């Protein structure tokens, strides 16, 4: 599964994207796996209310299933316009 990071999530984790092998069935479970990896992941995912997630380029939420998903992106609330 491709996992992408943007803005300060990218900066905290230190990379823009990576390939993650996982059996997680939900976004929340994937986040738990990432958090357990290293401090930089724990720091990036410390407050989920400050994060948004997109599954295959569609906004989603942390309860969502990863079934069939190929790309997960984590980022802060958007600030366009």
């Amino acid at each position, binding site marked *: 599964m491709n996992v*992408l990071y*943007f*803005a*300060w999530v*990218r900066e905290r984790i230190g990379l823009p994207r990576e390939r993650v092998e996982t059996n997680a069935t939900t976004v929340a479970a994937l986040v738990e796996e990432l958090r357990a990896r290293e401090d930089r992941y724990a720091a990036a995912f410390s407050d989920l209310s400050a994060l948004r997630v*997109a599954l295959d*380029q*569609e*906004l989603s939420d942390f309860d969502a299933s990863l079934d069939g998903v190929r*790309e997960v*992106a984590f*980022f*802060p*609330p*958007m*600030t*366009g*316009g």
Partner: protein
Amino acid sequence: MRVSVQEEIFDLGVEAETFAQANNGSGAIVTFTGIVRDADQGGLVAMEIEHYPGMTLKALTEIAQTAKDRWSLGDALVIHRYGRLELGEQIMMVATASRHRKDAFEAAEYLMDYLKSRAPFWKKEILHDGAADWVASKDEDEDALTRW
């Protein structure tokens, strides 16, 4: 309907005139243009805008299509830049064309509210001393969506 995600600066005058000419049967044209400014008088010199290439165009197109359907616009235009933008440069613009001014205004405000909080852009302010801060999202921007 045209949606453009681009690094290059755009010419507001040319875009506005072209859009109005193409929609001169519509009667009412509204444009909104956002410009890099030093909001907090903190010595801002530029803005860096990051985006999610695989998602941005799709998200903008969906937002524009929803506006077009909901207000039966004759046409809609969305241009949004990314990369490094200097102080005073144009960040983005939207334009709407409708038979009625109320629809053109409302649709443009809808586009802006959704671009602010639902299009995958993140702004970082670059200050004169080299400091750089991500712009925090505002509760009021999220709240603005509830009216639609």
